[in-house]
């Protein structure tokens, strides 16, 4: 973005960045909710889903938002009001912080961090704080259980996620997300550079672990114990209503979108196409139209990954809390460590 906006004054650049960030968070969230939550889920369950608001119910989301905005903002009497009100904002905040490092095209990025992925993994943990204080400040037993479950779960799955990313970082030799994209698209597999080198192939184990971990980070079924409608009555969100619930809701699906973007950057080659197709050699020689096509490619890959997340969410029952922890500590983490060891050995050998 810096190259595109070189002539724009600083305040203008900042404003455009903020607007771009809002679009990059809310547009995928809305699309995910409509296509997957409303329509795909309905088709899987032999029903039509919303059909009345707009063509094929496409305006349903606006109707829902309108409904939520009208509702009373209830704060329970014994709740810690200030913190209670703050919690959903903190959750959404982490999503916005996360999208700041995601590259959408050769020049279409918000910030170009040298340690981008490190930053992304760090800020994604902020949402845990939001959920924990939401659970604690609600003065509700179900919320408290949900908040504690969320804290335990999100911390447990942070680790396999970080470890899965380490394999990619070793292969790409950088933590900069933009450079990871370039490394994948300009690379070659077994001397063939037609397809670039998306890390989903050489880091397949890492990819699977990363997808499982983000499923848990997003608290989607089968890892949805913090919400668990049938036992905890929505867990930490029990006491929220109106637009604060809306913020939680947006946060849930926006984070799904942003995590899927990061996964596509790390494993599927992000915004890029294999550079050999158009004879590009480095990031500087890429044609300018990629700044328009790149985000679209990125969006497609994101939708594909979110489709997998949602598919699993709609068809699997939920694990129990202790089974979930066992799965993380005894299953995912050892495999992720092994993956790192093998990756680093192969990196040194070849």
């Amino acid at each position: 973005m810096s190259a595109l906006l070189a002539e724009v004054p600083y305040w203008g650049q900042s404003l455009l960045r903020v607007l771009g960030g809002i679009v990059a968070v809310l547009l995928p969230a809305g699309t995910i909710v409509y296509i997957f939550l409303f329509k795909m889920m309905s088709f899987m369950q032999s029903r039509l889903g919303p059909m009345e608001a707009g063509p094929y119910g496409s305006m349903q989301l606006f109707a829902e938002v309108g409904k939520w905005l009208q509702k009373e903002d209830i704060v329970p009497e014994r709740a810690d009001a200030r913190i209670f009100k703050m919690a959903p904002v903190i959750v959404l905040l982490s999503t916005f912080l996360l999208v700041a490092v995601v590259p959408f095209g050769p020049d279409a990025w918000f910030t170009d961090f040298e340690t981008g992925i490190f930053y992304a993994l760090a800020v994604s943990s902020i949402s845990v704080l939001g959920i924990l204080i939401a659970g604690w400040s609600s003065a509700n037993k179900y919320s408290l259980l949900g908040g504690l479950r969320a804290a335990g779960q999100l911390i447990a799955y942070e680790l396999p996620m970080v470890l899965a990313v380490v394999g990619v970082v070793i292969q790409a030799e950088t933590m900069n997300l933009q450079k990871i994209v370039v490394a994948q698209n300009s690379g070659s597999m077994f001397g063939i550079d037609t397809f670039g080198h998306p890390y989903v192939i050489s880091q397949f184990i890492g990819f699977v672990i990363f997808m499982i971990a983000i499923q848990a980070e997003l608290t989607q079924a089968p890892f949805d114990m913090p919400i668990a409608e049938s036992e905890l009555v929505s867990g930490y969100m029990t006491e929220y209503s109106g637009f604060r619930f809306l913020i939680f809701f947006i946060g849930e699906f926006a984070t799904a979108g942003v995590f899927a973007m990061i996964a596509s950057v790390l494993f599927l080659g992000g915004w890029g196409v294999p550079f050999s197709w158009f004879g590009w050699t480095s990031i500087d020689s890429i044609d300018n139209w990629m700044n328009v096509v790149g985000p679209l490619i990125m969006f497609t890959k994101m939708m594909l990954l979110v489709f997998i997340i949602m598919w699993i969410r709609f068809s699997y029952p939920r694990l129990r809390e202790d089974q979930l922890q066992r799965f993380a500590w005894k299953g995912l983490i050892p495999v992720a460590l092994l993956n790192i060891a093998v990756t680093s050995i192969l990196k040194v050998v070849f």
Partner: protein
Amino acid sequence: MSLTDRVLGDRQQLAYIASQAADARLNVELETEGMTLNIGPQHPATHGTLRIIARLDGEQVVWAEPACGYMHRGYEKLTEVRTYPQVTTLVNRIDWLGSFANEVPFILAAEKLMEVEAPPRAQHIRTILFELSRIANVSLFLGDLGVQLGAITPVFLAFRDREYVLNLIESATGGRFHPNFDRIGGLKDDLPAGWIDETRAVMKKLRGFCDQIEDLLFGNEIFQSRTRGIGVIPREVALQYGLSGANLRASGVDWDLRRDHQLPMAWNQADWKVWTHPDGDSFARCWIRLQETRESTKIVDQLLGSIPAGPVMAKVPKIIKVPEGEAWVSTENPLGEMGYYIVSRGDLGPFRVKIRSASFNNISITPWLLRGVYVPDIVTILASLYFILGDIDR
């Protein structure tokens, strides 16, 4: 103590020790208080207004007790001011998912007192409708099971396929939920034209639904890890608490009133199997119900082919007066044994009716069963015990 040693499974015993230890830890070591969690009266896992008072240490249940009565409607008392034909309207609201099955034992008890017997055709159709209401009831259980465990898709499939069965019941009786079709001495009407072929097609669909649920839910590793070994009821304990129906058969007791009681119904004319399971855990209870739905479709299919000709109503007086006496009839309803004890003084209405409903006995085991389990398992166990609130509180 000898009972505890002999009967309790390993896991149950460990859980019991853990709960005792947790209790001690609560008070001595950390001086923390346990938390009392009221699950219900309004809670998605209780299908209505059952309240489970659970004392928790973290996520583990130290002590739990069901508090029922929030939906008590006084049916036993209400029957005393109704005439016999009017009572069926009341009692088919007890287990509202399989309403026709509630009418049958009452009518049979009244017939027993009056010493009339329904003609064979009526007995056949009664049995078919009885099994249809079992299918409607249990297919919803199979879907609801998924929701309780966090899988949202099965319940919609269940609602879709239950609708076919309800349509059948509606076209035969006129009522989807509350048929009120059974009469003393027979049935209100004969079957409509084309009903038999339609029913055959629906039974085929229902078998497909059972396969689908088996694929989607029972074969799922997460489902199995959530239900296997959870809420184990040993054979002796199940008998002591008076469980009935699938809950008892899942504990390995080969007991089915449809086969064991000699009633004027047509079950003995079909070839079917009583399934039992040796494990007694939640998975066994769910699996037994799945198999029973399949068996029910088989029973219906066979009986459809052999409906005898003749009237559907025996000769009974216009104004029904039941002679003095007492009668007890119970049948194998979708939820378990359901029976009516009728005391008649020779009037138009019963003098006293005692209703034995299955769910009330089935949930009486919860204090024993919930001790030491985790909060998510409460939901699994309640779902697999399968109760209907109307059937508990009457």
